[in-house]
C-alpha cells in the first residue's frame, strides 16, 4: 500500500494546497512509509469493538435558545488580514462564480 506522487498531487488539489514536485514526492514517500507502519494494527482483532470518537463523554450537552452578543465590525477588522471591509460590511474575496 501507499500513494504515488501523482496521487499526492491529486489529493493536494482537493485540499487546495499547492505543492512543488519535490514536496509532493517527499510527502508521498512519507505517507507511504506511515501507511506501511500502520499495517501493524492488523495484528489486533477489532471486529467486535466499537470505535471511540470523543473521549469519555457519551452525551452532548444542549444549550438554551437564548441570544448572546455578537462581534462588531471593529472586531472583524482588527482580526488582521484586511479581508473584512467595513464599508461593504462584508468579507471580500476574489470572485467565485462557478463551482
Amino acid at each position: 500500500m501507499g500513494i504515488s506522487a501523482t496521487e499526492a498531487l491529486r489529493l493536494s488539489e482537493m485540499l487546495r494546497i499547492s505543492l512543488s514536485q519535490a514536496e509532493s514526492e517527499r510527502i508521498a514517500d512519507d505517507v507511504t512509509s506511515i501507511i506501511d507502519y500502520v499495517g501493524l494494527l492488523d495484528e489486533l482483532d477489532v471486529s467486535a469493538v466499537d470505535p471511540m470518537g470523543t473521549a469519555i463523554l457519551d452525551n452532548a450537552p444542549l444549550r438554551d435558545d437564548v441570544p448572546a452578543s455578537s462581534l462588531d465590525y471593529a472586531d472583524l477588522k482588527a482580526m488582521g488580514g484586511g479581508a473584512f471591509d467595513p464599508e461593504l460590511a462584508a468579507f471580500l474575496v476574489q470572485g467565485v462564480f462557478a463551482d
Partner: protein
Amino acid sequence: MSERKYVTTVGVEVHVELATRTKMFCSCLNAPQDVPPNTAVCPVCLGLPGSLPVINREAVRLGVVAALALNCAVNDRIWFERKNYMYPDLVKGYQISQIVSPLGGNGWLAIIGDDGEEKRILINRVHLEEDTARLSHAGDNSLIDVNRSGAPLMEIVTEPVMRSGREAEEYVRKLRAILVYNGVSRCRIQRGEMRVEANVSIAPEGATRLGVRTEIKNQAGFNHMRSAVEYEVRRHAGVIESGGTLHQETRGWDDANQRTFVQRSKEDAHDYRYFPEPDLPPLKIDPAWVKEIGAGMATGYEDYVRGLLDHGLSPADIEALSRNDALGFLRLAAADMPEKTPLFAKRLVKDVFALANSTAMALDESKLRPAAFRDAALLLENGKIAAEGFRTLLDLLYREGGAAEQVARGNQLFVETDHGAVEEAIRKVFAGNAAMVAEFKAGKTAVRNALLGRTMKALGKKADPRVVSGLLDEALKNA
C-alpha cells in the same frame, strides 16, 4: 418520441431553516436577513480557531417536531459528522452534518397521487446540520455575509417514490404546509428558508433497475421544480431513444429558457470524508422527551384542516388560508382559544389577505405576529376598537409590527367609552350646524346621517358608531 413507455422516478431532498432564535451551534441571532450583514457573527460561526460548537436544544426540539409530524421514528442516540469540502461560504472547511445516525427516519407524508388516490411518500431521513454563509457578487469580487453561517438547517430526504413532476410538487407543497403549520420553519422560499433538490431518472416499464439519475439543484419555486423535472423526463427519453448515453450529474434550471443545464458531472463529485465530529459527543434523545414534545404538538395538520370544516369554515376559506400559508398562523393565533378559530379565520381571509394584496407583501414577509393579530381581532370583537380603528391597527401591525394593545393606544384607536366626550362632540356639532338640527326638528330626518357623519369625523377613529349613533338620537330627541 413518447414518454409513455417509461416509468419516471423522482426523489426529493428539501433543506429548511429552522425557526429558532439562535443558531445551531452558537448563540448568535438566527435572523440572517433581518440584521445588517456580518453583525450576527461570533468566533463559532466565523469558524475562528479554538471556537467550539454547542447544540441548540430548540433546534433539536423542532427537528423532533418535524420528524413526528412526518411520521418518522426518532433515534434515541444520534451524533454529528463533519462533511469536508472547501468553498468560500463554508467558514470551517467543513459543515457539521449528520450521515450515519440521522435524527429521524422511516416516515411518510400523504399526497394525492397521479391516479387520484392517496399516496404515501416515504421519508428516508430527517437530519440536522448547519447552513453556510451567503455569497454575493460585486464586480470581480465576491462578498461573504457570515450571518447565515451556522443557521440551523434540517434536511428531509424522500425515497425515490414519486412518479412525476406533479407528484413532486404536491409533496413539497404539502411538506411546506406541515412544517409551517407546526412552527418548524417559516419556509419562505424567496428568502431561501426552503430549498429543494430533485433526483430524476426514467426506466422502461417493467425494468427492475432505476435509470441513470440526474440531480436538479436549488429550485426557486415549486413550479420551477415541476417544470425542471418534466423537462428532465423528456430529455432523458430523448437521449435514450436517440441511442445516446445519460450521465449521472447535477443540473440547474434555466427558467428563462425553460431548460436544465449541467452544473457538475459525477467525475467532479466531492469526496466529503465524513467522520464523527470530535467536538461533540453523541447526543441521547430521551424517548420521554420525544413523548413530551409529541404531546405538546398541535393537532395533526390533516385533522386540523378537517376540524376547520367542522368549525363551519367554508372550503373556499380553507383553500384561501392554505394558499396564503396562513394555517399555521391561524393555529398559533387560536392556540389558547380554539373556539375563536372561525372568528380569526374570517379576519384573516377578509382583512389580512386584503393587506397582503394592498401592500404586495405576503403574510409571512410581514411584521404581523399571530399573537398581535389575535389581540387585535379580540379588541374589535370586544368593542374596544371600531372597524375603522381595527383596519388601521392591522395595517400598522402588518407593516411595522408590535403588540396590538400598545400600538392601538399609541395611535389612539381605542373607542371613546366616555359618553361625556361623545356628548361633548355632539354638542359642538349641533352648535356648528344649528340649521341642520332645525331641519331635523322640522321633520327632515334624513339630515340625521349627515350629523352622525360629522360627529364621527370629529371623534376620529376612536368613535364607535353604535355608541355615537345611540347618543346622537338621544340628543336629537332632546334638542
